[in-house]
């Protein structure tokens, strides 16, 4: 006679709990960001009072947001033994699903944080009288999502993600240094990347990194008729694919 077996939790319950617990785990980071924004607000308010705040809002460069999104998963998975038996993996949920649920929970909070940042940024821009397309762009949402997906794939898929991240960062730093040494074309493109058709495609092609980082692509999300939608979704799809592969390392049938 077999005992009555217990069921597994409903997906909705797991998602809600993971969102709650991830939010709690990130309280310290949220506090740090809030303090930084509060500190940065002070000189902006001073400049607004002096009527010289325009310079704070004339950048359409969202690279810092991308970097933060890339690093966000490191904070989120901090302390979790991803490649060792731990409490997280003893939960009665399919392991790959559980990992992806945690990633989803982090994404929810990242989007909440981004929305708050946008409100702050746009609110200050309105106060300063600098409103319009140059201030903020909704493109940052898919852009940061893509970086977040790649960051999550790093953390979930690699035993030593920080080493890999620093290595990758080092390569980019070297390339950037080389890039500056070589100089730019009159159009502002890197001579280094323009020197080869492959590098040109990687950097400035319709699916290139520049398209991902540049606000042109971000704005294109608002206007599906423009060319930027496809590259944006191309990178999103690539991020999802890489994340799936990384999460699959933790699948029920994988050996640790």
């Amino acid at each position, binding site marked *: *006679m077999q005992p009555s*077996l217990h069921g597994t*939790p*409903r997906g909705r319950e797991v998602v809600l709990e993971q969102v709650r617990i991830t939010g709690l785990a990130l309280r310290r980071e949220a506090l740090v960001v809030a303090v930084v924004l509060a500190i940065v607000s002070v000189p902006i308010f001073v400049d607004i009072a002096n009527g010289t705040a325009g310079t704070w809002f004339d950048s359409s460069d969202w690279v810092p947001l991308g970097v933060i999104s890339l690093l966000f998963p490191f904070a989120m998975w901090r302390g979790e033994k991803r490649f060792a038996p731990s409490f997280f993996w003893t*939960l*009665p949920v399919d392991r790959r699903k559980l990992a992806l649920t945690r990633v989803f929970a982090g994404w929810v909070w990242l989007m909440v944080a981004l929305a708050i940042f946008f409100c702050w940024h746009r609110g200050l821009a309105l106060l300063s009288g600098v409103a319009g397309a140059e201030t903020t762009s909704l493109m940052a949402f898919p852009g940061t999502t893509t970086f977040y997906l790649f960051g999550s794939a790093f953390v979930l898929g690699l035993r030593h993600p920080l080493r890999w991240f620093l290595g990758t960062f080092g390569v980019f730093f070297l390339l950037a240094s080389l890039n500056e040494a070589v100089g730019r074309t009159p159009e502002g493109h890197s001579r280094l990347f323009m020197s080869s058709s492959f590098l040109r495609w990687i950097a400035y092609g319709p699916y290139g990194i520049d398209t991902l980082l540049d606000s042109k692509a971000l704005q294109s999300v608002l206007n599906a008729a423009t060319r930027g939608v496809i590259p944006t979704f191309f990178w999103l799809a690539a991020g999802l694919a890489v994340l799936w592969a990384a999460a699959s390392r933790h699948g029920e*049938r994988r*050996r640790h």
Partner: protein
Amino acid sequence: MSSLPEHAVERGELAVVTHALSMRYGRETALEGVDLRVPEGAVYVLIGTNGAGKSTAMKVLLNLVRPDSGRAEVFGLDTASRGAEVRAQIGYIPESHAHDYAWMTCGRLMQHAAAHYPSWDHAYAAQLVEVFGVRADRKLGTLSKGEARRLQFVLALAHRPPLLLLDEPTDGLDPVMRNGTLAQLAGHLADTPTTVIIATHHVHEVESLADHVGVLREGRLAAQMTRDDLRRMVARYRVEVPEGWQPPSELRVLRRSRTGREMQWTLAGERDDVTARLAAAGATVRDVTALSLEEAALAFLSEEEAA
């Protein structure tokens, strides 16, 4: 040596079955062809020295680690392909006391666990919190070993799992709390139909609970039987032998010592059969002493050296 009947497997009466489980960590053998048979409702004590493979066997059942070969089933569910369902049936106390979420309070961790176990019994959890003296407002990072262990007991028992995997469960508990915890565990088993696997090398602590025994030595299952069989089949024989006497080769000698012409042997086998064989070989059996669970387990653990 196994006296657990194979036909029980066919009748689906076994809670846990493993088939030739083998696993290595690098060059170290953790498990080698292990065939566990744990009947439903049993309290199965898995005995072994440090590194014998007890913890690894439990992790395989939870699908926390995957074996190199072989497979395992819990209540007929394959642990590799139906890991989530298997884990829903298990309350687990790991060997380690450390918890990953140092920032979290005990109360929040219980809430977290409750969200993942539909069978979580909130009233029972509250009762366990009271009994084990767990303070819900304490952060995990500030818990002592004993406090962490008590919290792990609450987490393992509160969803009334059909299978409990307890890895060195009394480790970190002071003697008073250890007795209280084992009494609470006995009470739980009386209230809730549960199969239990306890991995330990402190056999005397769980001797009163155990009804089945498995002995792991260097990753191999040296013995597996009911407690009654163990008492019947493993005994210390005091024998007097003539000069130059050689023991019958078919006897399974676990331990031996000698004083003059008198020998004390710990032997495995049916008592009457062993006595008859010794007598037939010319030895005089002076007396036969039954062993405690711990003594018998130690005899199996030291078998190789004795041989």
